[in-house]
């Protein structure tokens, strides 16, 4: 009897033992830092003398000073997400259903950018789009860019960079959901006299939505906070909120403003993600797939 209870207790404690170390790490180095950042965002003073003061005006001051960069970050990342989706969905579809024996090679090409460092890829784009490069010359010849016009330091360059850099994150989840799609359902739709278009819109697309939701989130979230693309491909006119936070923290040591901006960014982001998941379905985030695990195996 007693032994049985002991076994029961041990069984009930197993999940906590398994969970413990990892969750503790996340609490200590994700949750607790959030608390400290929140506190720092209500401090007053000048580096290195800060005092906790419930200074809520830090938020309004920082937001009114940097609202342009704040909104620009969301605009650029939304644009990059939409363009990325337009590139990724047909590509994922082509790989999943028309790849044939080229499927693996195509998948390798999709994850190939992962094998070069993010910063080097962005630098490569800087080289490609540089003022005396081939792309700018062509665009100038075609009259799409004025004689002394540039591609670098425009919003287009930053959006193009963001789109490029997060594209694999968009393609892989969409591919994963298309790949496991039961094609007999599409055939059934066609047997029931659905046109290819109807079959796609009514069967394939809805079934691949988890991949689309995961892909758009995996693009939108990192793109909004990114400051590498704006730094390398843009100029001062294209600075995003990430550039501001980075500079306030690491160069100007205005920690309270930086913390207030980071906290607002996170809150807005979580709100957007929450609403988006409510509308689009939650299995993509809480369920099984997010990183395109099937492909990496």
């Amino acid at each position: 009897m007693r032994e049985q209870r002991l076994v029961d207790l041990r069984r009930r404690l197993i999940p906590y033992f398994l969970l413990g170390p990892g969750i503790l790490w996340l609490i200590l180095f994700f949750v607790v830092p959030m608390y400290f950042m929140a506190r720092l965002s209500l401090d007053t003073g000048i580096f290195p003398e800060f005092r906790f003061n419930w200074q809520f005006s830090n938020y309004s001051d920082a937001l009114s000073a940097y609202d342009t960069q704040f909104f620009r970050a969301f605009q650029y990342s939304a644009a990059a997400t939409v363009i990325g989706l337009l590139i990724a969905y047909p590509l994922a579809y082509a790989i999943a259903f028309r790849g044939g024996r080229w499927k693996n090679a195509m998948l390798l090409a999709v994850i190939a950018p992962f094998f070069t460092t993010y910063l080097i890829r962005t630098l490569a784009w800087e080289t490609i789009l540089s003022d005396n490069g081939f792309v700018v010359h062509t665009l100038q010849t075609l009259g799409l860019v004025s004689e002394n016009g540039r591609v670098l330091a425009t919003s287009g360059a930053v959006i193009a960079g963001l789109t490029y850099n997060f594209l694999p994150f968009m393609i892989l989840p969409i591919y994963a959901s298309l790949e496991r799609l039961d094609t007999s359902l599409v055939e059934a739709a066609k047997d029931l006299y659905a046109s290819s278009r109807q079959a796609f819109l009514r069967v394939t697309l809805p079934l691949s939505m988890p991949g689309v939701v995961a892909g758009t989130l995996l693009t939108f979230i990192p793109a909004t906070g990114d400051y590498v693309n704006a730094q390398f491909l843009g100029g001062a006119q294209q600075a995003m909120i990430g550039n501001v936070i980075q500079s306030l923290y690491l160069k100007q040591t205005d920690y309270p403003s930086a913390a207030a901006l980071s906290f607002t960014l996170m809150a807005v982001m979580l709100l957007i993600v929450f609403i988006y998941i409510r509308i689009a379905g939650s299995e993509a985030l809480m369920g099984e797939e997010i990183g395109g695990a099937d492909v990496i195996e």
Partner: protein
Amino acid sequence: MEAHAATLPRERRETAGSRVWKWLKRNAIVIYGGLAIAYMLIPIALIIVFSFNDPAGKFNFTWQGFTLSHWAHPFQISELTDALMLSLRLALLATLISTVLGTMIALALVRYDFLGRRASNYLIVIPTATPEVVLGASLLSMFLIYGLSLGFTTLLIAHVMFCISFVVIVVRSRLIGFDRSLEEAAQDLGADPFTTFRKVTMPLIWPGIIAGAMLAFALSIDDFVVSNFTAGTEVTFPLYIFGAAQRGIPVQVYIIATMLFSITVIAMVFTVLQQRRADRLASVRPEQEV
């Protein structure tokens, strides 16, 4: 008669045109996909090509001429090599820790129902929904308030933190499709829980763990944003590149990038081929139609 002769070629031209049109229409998605893949590979091609460049000044931005002289001394720049070694050391350690912790969490979440399961799920998802700049900024806030000096330890703490969630997500996806009856069978045949885990569970979830570890390694070695906040005076490979971007990127950066790229591609291709060979050897059943 004449009219007939005149219409015939026109008709034929139309059918040829419509055939091309039909072919285009049928293969539009493949062509589009091919173009998209070309777009994904352009910067990589540029990196490889520019690793053979012979730049005149310190900026490797325009093509000056082919040379192998830099390839003869890929590790000539000691700061770059040090940064690379630091990144490798950091990524290996972060991968090891986050894979162990993440796999344990995934096992707990999929296999057990317990108080706090939902909260744990949220705690795992929220870091992935947080922009990296916020992760870095919050950690820096804490380190500043504690007066902790930044360095390898703070880098490792940060890297493990953002890797754990992704490991959990990948390993969990593998565990969800897991056939529990295999474990029960092992237990019925007299295996104790530990043996069952070692002989049945582990081999089955191993691919998931490897996939999680690979993702963690890729995230860690490539991380710039969080490292920028938590590195202090330490310089990882991405941090070196960021610093060098202002001063001028040495050709060696492109050479090392090309090396890393080639090693990974060769390893991937090799693994896939091995896997196929193993599958072929293991398949008792005749090959199914493709």
